[in-house]
């Protein structure tokens, strides 16, 4: 028991655990729609595109969060804008824009000759979360959950039958851009925990795991939240006790839960 309670004597661990729970809930709820709307690749693209904004903000002495948010939003809208051109397929713009943004980030790092915080940007450091970061994470999470609650039924229809949604007058472009905007903000929240490279896993894997277990949307979100929070907490403790990368530990915990659930489900199908 002491193994679990001992780290909580430190304020940075308390902040990390709180951030873990909030981030887990956020990624699970939005990630459910990302998975069900087949947007995992877009999520992957956005996570990689945050790097130049973070590096630029770091070099200019500004907020890394705001830099990341600006870069991911530029990417989200860039993908949406380019995809409107008939000659540029959507998967082409999804493949192109984030790669260019990532290259720009690497260029800025090499130009600034500052490799010190590169690891934290790429792979996250949940133990390094400040009170200010925590407030921003809570704010973004609150706004995203409100958005999901307000537009829940329209988002469901967008996933299952976008043509019908459009036919009854729902402005699909607005809904799609809204989803991309909040996806970009969620990526920013996830970056502090698992970094730019691994955030997409936190969005996608818990929701994909939950989907294996249930056919009910609400339950998918709930289970995804449980899996995400457990994974992030596992990352906090592994990082604390073994001084390992928290981001990598979180993603591997997500993957471990997925594999266990997948195997259990496969065994159930085989024997029953």
């Amino acid at each position: 028991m002491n193994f679990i309670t001992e780290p909580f004597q430190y304020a940075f661990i308390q902040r990390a655990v709180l951030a873990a729970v909030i981030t887990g809930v956020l990624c699970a709820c939005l990630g459910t729609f990302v998975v069900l709307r087949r947007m995992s690749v877009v999520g992957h693209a956005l996570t990689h595109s945050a790097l130049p904004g973070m590096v630029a903000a770091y070099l200019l002495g500004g907020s890394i969060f705001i830099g990341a948010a600006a870069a991911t939003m530029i990417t989200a809208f860039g993908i949406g804008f380019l995809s409107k051109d008939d000659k540029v397929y959507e998967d082409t713009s999804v493949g192109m824009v984030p790669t260019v943004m990532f290259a720009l980030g690497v260029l800025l790092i090499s130009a600034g000759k500052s490799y010190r915080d590169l690891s934290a940007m790429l792979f996250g450091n949940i133990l390094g979360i400040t009170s200010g970061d925590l407030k921003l994470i809570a704010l973004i999470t609150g706004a995203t959950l409100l958005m999901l609650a307000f537009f829940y039924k329209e988002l469901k229809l967008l996933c299952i039958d976008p043509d019908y949604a459009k036919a009854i007058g729902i402005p699909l472009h607005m809904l799609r851009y809204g989803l991309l905007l909040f996806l970009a903000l969620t990526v920013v929240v996830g970056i502090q925990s698992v970094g730019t490279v691994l955030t997409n896993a936190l969005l996608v894997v818990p929701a994909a795991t939950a989907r294996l277990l249930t056919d009910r949307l609400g339950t998918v979100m709930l289970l995804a939240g449980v899996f995400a929070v457990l994974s992030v907490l596992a990352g906090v403790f592994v990082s604390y006790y073994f001084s390992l990368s928290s981001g990598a530990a979180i993603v591997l915990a997500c993957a471990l839960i997925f594999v266990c659930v997948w195997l259990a489900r496969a065994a159930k199908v085989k024997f029953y």
Partner: protein
Amino acid sequence: MKFSYCRHRHSSPDPKAPALEIKGLIAGYPGEDRPALNGVNLSVPVGASLALVGANGAGKSTLFKVISGLLPAQAGTVRIFGHHLGACHQQVVYLPQRSEIDWHFPMSVLELVLTGRYVYLGWFTRPQKKDSDIALESMAQLGIADLGLKQIGKLSGGQQQRVLIARALAQNADLLLLDEPLNAVDARTRDTVERVLEGIKAAGKTVLVATHHYCGQEEGRYDGAIYLKDGEQIK
């Protein structure tokens, strides 16, 4: 307070206007050189039941997509109950082909049928008991009242078709655009759908049914037929 999806106020049907009036319609898909519809002219009176006949690729689905506002017209005019496109969202319902729905989405049959009520609910309003009652009544007409809690991913092809028609009925629209409603369905579903179509017609609603099979028994079911070939109206 209601927040409609549509920027314009929903217009009531003009009693003197035909249900559907199309003049010189040209429409196509982005990136394609040749229009999918070229010079279509139609006037469908209120209460008529017409078959839209043509082979695959003739332009039947494209015509429905233009009428339901999914695809913009490149030229020509489309008026529904005397109003321009978009003013009558509640009065028009488009039944898509089954393949256009994501049947793997975690949703129950009742939830899917309830989406037919969304156009009346608008933003921020959840379906009420009245909406559930209407959805359940539509499902009962299609013989799927007992499937309400079943997940849509576990339905057979015939059940999927009946669920989509139940959603169309739940919208209570006056102009129904049904894209191949009898395509690849079992005999039981075919009988049920035919009975429901007769009921829709008896209720004075206007129905356009896209089909590539129109002969013998089919001819007696409709007031007439519109023929399309390679995007052009041939009769």
